[in-house]
């Protein structure tokens, strides 16, 4: 198969990678079950897209503002629901994601089902510029390469930042909250504030993933952001293992190799059936990993097995 094909897989895997880093800080390091990550992603992507197409902003100002908007959405969801029990928080976040999707699908300001188009000219310019530089190296035909590089460089930077944070006293508090939030509160830490911060990071990372997704698809369409995106993210998380940022890279690459690799098996099935089969496999991964490997498929054993 062509290099361009696998670059495309790498692009998707990288977008999911950034997205799942956000899930990891919530789930693996704070113990928050955030099922609304796709909602934050679409808010980030749509905010960026609308600021560029409707307000005429440059993407360089639109993107930071869009991140702030996604974080604000995270706080909005977290403020009422993080005080509730874990199962309520999960339901609240999934409801939030559906509301967001539904709004973008139906509200006139977001283009409805037509979506938003024409926000990515500045990115195309950068991409073309980079391709010109790559041509002398004989890589000029790989049109996906600039996006691939941008995504994985961003992923790496986010990964380094998160690892540094996790090694800090701040990260230590998060991890303790995952273990036993009452005991953390009894030591004078404001658990609620830390949970909100964790959620804010997840929302910001989701927004960044959303930017890249919107560069990749060239138009914003609400069904790109349905909750399935979050669930696929959880599959990558489970594959790579909890409580490990490095595992996220592993998990997302593995997930997408399996997903895309299915088409090489020459199964006697229609494309619709192969599509459905992929999701059945994802579902089975989630079930089996939850039943058999509490630390995630490739996760370290000790960390998750010592819990409660």
């Amino acid at each position: 198969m062509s290099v361009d094909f696998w670059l495309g897989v790498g692009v998707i895997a990288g977008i999911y990678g950034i997205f799942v880093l956000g899930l990891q800080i919530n789930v693996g390091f704070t113990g928050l079950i955030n099922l609304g990550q796709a909602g934050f992603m679409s808010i980030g992507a749509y905010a960026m897209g609308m600021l560029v197409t409707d307000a005429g902003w440059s993407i360089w100002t639109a993107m930071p503002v869009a991140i702030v908007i996604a974080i604000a959405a995270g706080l909005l969801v977290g403020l009422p629901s993080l005080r509730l029990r874990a199962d309520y928080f999960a339901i609240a976040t999934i409801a939030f994601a559906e509301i967001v999707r539904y709004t973008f699908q139906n509200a006139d300001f977001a283009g409805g089902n037509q979506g938003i188009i024409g926000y990515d000219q500045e990115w195309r310019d950068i991409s073309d510029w980079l391709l010109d530089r790559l041509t002398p190296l004989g890589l000029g035909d790989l049109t996906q390469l600039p996006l691939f590089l941008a995504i994985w460089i961003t992923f790496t930077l986010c990964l380094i930042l998160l690892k540094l944070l996790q090694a800090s006293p701040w990260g230590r508090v998060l991890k303790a909250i995952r273990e036993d939030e009452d005991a953390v509160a009894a030591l004078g830490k404001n658990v609620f504030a830390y949970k909100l911060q964790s959620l804010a990071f997840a929302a910001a990372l989701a927004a960044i993933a959303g930017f890249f997704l919107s560069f990749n698809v060239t138009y914003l369409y609400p069904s790109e952001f349905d909750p399935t995106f979050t669930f696929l993210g959880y599959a990558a998380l489970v594959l790579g293992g909890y409580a490990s940022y490095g595992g996220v890279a592993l998990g997302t690459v593995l997930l997408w190799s399996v997903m895309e690799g299915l088409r090489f098996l020459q199964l006697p099935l229609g494309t619709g059936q192969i599509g459905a089969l992929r999701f059945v496999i994802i579902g089975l991964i989630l079930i089996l990993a939850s039943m058999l490997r509490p630390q995630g498929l490739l996760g370290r054993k000790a960390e998750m097995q010592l819990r409660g």
Partner: protein
Amino acid sequence: MQPNDEMSRSESEARRGGDAPPFLWAGWRRLPPVVYLALGLLLILLLLFAVAGPVEAGQSTLNGLVGAGYFALGAVGLTLVYGVLRLVNFAHGDMLTFGTYVTLAITSLGVPFWPAAVLAMIVTALLAVLIDRVMWEPMRRARTSTLQFFLAAIGLAMVLRYSVQFFAGSQVRAVGLDTTSSVDIGPWHLGSLQFVVMLVGLATILLTGAGLRYTRLGKEMRAVADNIALAEVAGIDTRRTIRITWIVAGGLAALAGILYATAIGSINPNFGFTILLSLFAAAVLGGIGNAYGALAGGIVIGLAQEWSTLFFNPRWKPAIGFAILILTLILMPRGIFGRRKARI
């Protein structure tokens, strides 16, 4: 805090009787919440009659009662499973899908629709029991964490939905019933199928409520949902109760899906997941874990969605369910009928 939580549950019967607050209207507080709810809904209905006119308001109420059936029957299984097993079953919506597609598969063999529906309810109930056997029970025994239960439920939802899609395709399918005839009730009218759905739905709500209240099985189920440890001490066979809970949840889920499909006329494999949030809204509104609450919550959701069309574009109907869910979570996470502690 665990012991306190237990205490608050086991003592909740005592609370309702004693401790009248020192207000003039103290006696009012002893009325069951369902009376308030009925009065509230009636008040809204009167307001709507005044604002939108009796024909429109009555028509939307009638339409709302059609939806009330499938929301209530879907929600009651969700809430019972939560109450008995503390499981937030994200796969419940896809049980609706499964049951409906099984019905269609059986009708394609030449069986008439309603007998096929009954068969599908049985098949779905058996599937629910089977899933508990191979999946939930081992996980309960392994004392799995909340996160793992959530992810397994999401995984199960995907397996169910996409298995259906694998065999039936993702396209929208017509249910294939006669959709042309209609029934007139005074100034209002309703499609015959919708009329049947309303009658079956409301009758099953009453039957389910009565079954929970008066049969031994129902009492046991409610006892286990209220406090499993106490129920065990009282000599209830909790394993059997769990099995029956799944049978009821699965069977009613299939029926809810079938009623939905009949009322709407066409479905695709995503419909169960789409309506899941409205089911959550009904369950949370009624106080999650409380079976009567879910039935009442389902009726409220059904009515609220149709009433909203008097003021908003009908495409926002599902958003009413979301809005009720979010408002309930913020304002009264225990729900109207709930007693269980929602805050940490």
